[in-house]
């Protein structure tokens, strides 16, 4: 029996924890009470992407898009919208323009997006294989198994121009070809779902919202390279994604889409989950394989490449989640169709986790070649709180910082590399003038130093040295010679490190030195941090004209650095001040400021 309406409730992590689960319960209860249980179906979907405004509820067939829905609001939505057919204006994205913006297509956040990877996220129930099949799911595997040879599959992927979305952008078809050309025998297909970049959650959302697409893609890859076994290496920190994958694997087995003799074709393929345990370096191919084998995740020199000698010494292909999510679509719609999207060197789309000081943070997917300006200002709705755009950061700890003059660069692998950053896995973090670039470089270095496995000296020692120099500069003890040291060590790490982690760890330092040298010099020469982030360089001052001599600050100061008599302006002894900022918070007259 067909339903008259559908209530889609976002079941992504951000919405769930923002109260989405109680909203689902409330809908079920209210629909039952209103006698609509058989007419309206409640579907818990994958991430709709607009995390900033969650929990999100979408009503079909009208396509009405409600934001920040609470369990208390559900009664009204059921009574007004589902019973009487009237839109609840106050829950629409922008109440003033509610008439225009009720549908998702009219919200600026969605207008410039183009969804291939996230095609099913937010539309299907990720825990139902039938939903995936209804949206052309498992059609590609059927086509591959019965109409194509493994060579043709590899050829199609090569022709599509798809490149690895894990960061480096190696052509996916080439990887497959290398593995295919290896002598027959045990081969492995591995999905890298160890999304470790701070500030990135593209893969998590794909796995949570559309797990079957990854299973289908892995099976296609397995057929192409001649592997009968696949592993998904997934972070243990992603329990919801793990649960949904386990359900998906079970369902695929039940329908004969995984396991022995898939669809009666004679091809057998099975998938197992392996959990990561919180090591960033395991995103590196050879380290990831070590981890699946149950060892410390330390990288190995390449060559031999995993496609020749990988898991337990056998040929292995490792693809990232986002790369794989493209595969079934390419098979269904053809390489020529995919090839038309994107730029000359980079085809298809890219998913970004847009976060930081931007109004609409969330998960977005845009065609390659979209500019940063379109992403940050059109989709992201500009900078929060009326602040100024200072820089964007792509590629996480391995990427660079991009200053305002490059806002109009069309995004692809080559253009980002040219301006000193990388595509990376898709974290896109926006910064405003209250963020200090030296502090940001330090933040990323701190991360890579912590995550360096310690196997090779350039990364182990170089990273630590870089961090020490940065600490010196933000503490106000920096000299101009330190800049030369930073540059020399960065270069050495780049050239001599064993794996991608060490080779790229200095990118945040190099790019900030390149574009924000004036701020480094301010820290060194003027002992000043213009963003007010580096606490050792901040001075708290009392404005004598505004100070009423109430003595509140002097009593609060834990270091007894403030002196003065009642009703007379007070003063701060800078040698005693520990820059805790309590005086500024305490002052009722706004007489204390820092800079």
């Amino acid at each position, binding site marked *: 029996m067909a339903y008259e309406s559908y209530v889609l409730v976002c079941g992504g*992590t951000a919405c769930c*924890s923002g109260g989405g689960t109680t909203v689902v319960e409330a809908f079920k209860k209210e629909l039952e009470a209103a006698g609509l249980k058989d007419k309206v179906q409640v579907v818990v979907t994958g991430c709709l992407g607009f*995390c900033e405004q969650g929990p999100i509820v979408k009503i079909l067939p009208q396509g009405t898009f409600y934001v920040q829905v609470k369990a208390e609001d559900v009664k009204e939505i059921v009574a007004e919208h589902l019973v009487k057919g009237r839109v609840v204006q106050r829950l629409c994205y922008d109440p003033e323009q509610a008439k225009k913006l009720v549908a998702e297509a009219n919200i600026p956040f969605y207008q410039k997006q183009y969804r291939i990877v996230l095609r099913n996220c937010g539309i299907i129930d990720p825990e139902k294989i039938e939903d995936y099949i209804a949206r052309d799911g498992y059609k590609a595997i059927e086509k591959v198994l019965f109409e194509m040879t493994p060579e043709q599959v590899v050829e199609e992927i090569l022709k599509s121009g798809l490149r690895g979305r894990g960061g480096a952008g190696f052509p996916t078809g080439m990887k497959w070809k290398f593995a295919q050309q290896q002598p027959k025998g045990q081969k492995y297909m591995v999905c890298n779902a160890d999304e470790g970049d701070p500030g990135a959650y593209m893969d998590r959302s794909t796995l949570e919202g559309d797990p079957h697409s990854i299973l289908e893609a892995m099976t296609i890859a397995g057929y192409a390279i001649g592997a009968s076994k696949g592993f998904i290496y997934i972070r243990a920190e992603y329990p919801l994604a793990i649960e949904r994958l386990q359900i998906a694997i079970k369902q695929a087995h039940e329908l004969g889409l995984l396991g022995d003799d898939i669809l009666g074709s004679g091809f057998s393929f099975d998938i197992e989950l392996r959990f990561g345990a*919180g090591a960033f370096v395991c995103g590196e191919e050879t380290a990831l394989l070590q981890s699946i084998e149950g060892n*410390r995740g330390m990288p190995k020199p390449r060559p031999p490449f995993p496609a020749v000698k990988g898991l337990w010494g056998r040929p292995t292909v490792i693809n990232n989640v986002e790369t794989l999510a493209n595969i079934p679509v390419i098979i269904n719609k053809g390489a020529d169709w995919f090839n038309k999207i994107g730029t000359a060197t980079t085809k298809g789309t890219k998913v970004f*986790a847009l*976060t930081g000081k931007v109004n609409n943070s969330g998960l977005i997917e845009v065609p390659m070649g979209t500019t940063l300006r379109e992403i940050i200002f059109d989709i992201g709705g500009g900078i929060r709180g009326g602040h100024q755009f200072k820089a964007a950061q792509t590629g996480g700890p391995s990427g660079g910082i991009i200053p305002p003059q490059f806002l109009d660069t069309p995004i692809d692998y080559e253009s980002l590399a040219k301006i000193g950053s990388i595509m990376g896995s898709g974290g896109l973090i926006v910064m405003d003038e209250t963020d200090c670039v030296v502090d940001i470089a330090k933040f990323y270095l701190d991360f890579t130093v912590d995550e360096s496995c310690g196997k090779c000296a350039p990364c182990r020692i170089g990273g630590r040295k870089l961090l020490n120099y940065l600490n010196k500069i933000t503490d106000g003890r920096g000299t101009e010679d330190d800049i030369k040291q930073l540059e020399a060590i960065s270069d050495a790490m780049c050239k001599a490190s064993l794996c991608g982690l060490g080779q790229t760890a200095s990118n945040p330092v190099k790019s900030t030195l390149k574009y924000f040298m004036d701020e480094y010099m301010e820290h060194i020469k003027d002992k000043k941090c213009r963003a007010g982030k580096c606490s050792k360089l901040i001075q708290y001052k009392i404005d004598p004209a505004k100070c009423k001599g109430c003595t509140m600050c002097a009593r609060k100061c834990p270091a007894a650095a403030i002196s003065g008599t009642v009703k007379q302006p007070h003063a701060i002894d800078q040698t005693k001040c520990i820059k805790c900022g309590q005086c500024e918070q305490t002052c009722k007259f706004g007489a204390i400021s820092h800079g």
Partner: protein
Amino acid sequence: MSKKLETMTPELRAFIEEWKAKPGNLIMVLHRVQQTYGYIPREIAIETSKILDVPLAKIYGVITFYNFFRLQKAGKYNVQVCLGTACYLRGGDDIIKEFERQLGVGLNATTDDGMFSVEAVRCLGCCGLAPVAVINGEVHGKLSSKDVTGIIKQYRDRG
């Protein structure tokens, strides 16, 4: 104070036996150990080493390599504050400092009454809610230092 020694539960033993023959089983087994006890007790690590016939040194090599595995028991309520980039930019470290101050413990330590422990964690993947803290699986988003008192009280009251 002498510590109570943990004993291996029958379920855990069955799990390890089941995985024993599979290559690359160690990390999956350690995940199960931590799931059972909340950390990896030394006596269990020793027993695991015997069942799997893997040197204890290798087991500790793996445990200490990965951030996820812990060698000490967490508090009844484990406060995990996210320090991913988005949370850091929106003040995640202020949230950590406030938890440390109010609970009187440092990072990765547990309060004397065993109620709370504070941990800084890597990106939890809900950057839209930054800054975020997760306490025993419950997510608290869009936090400010002012919210900390209320959150601690909420869990204290649960006992």
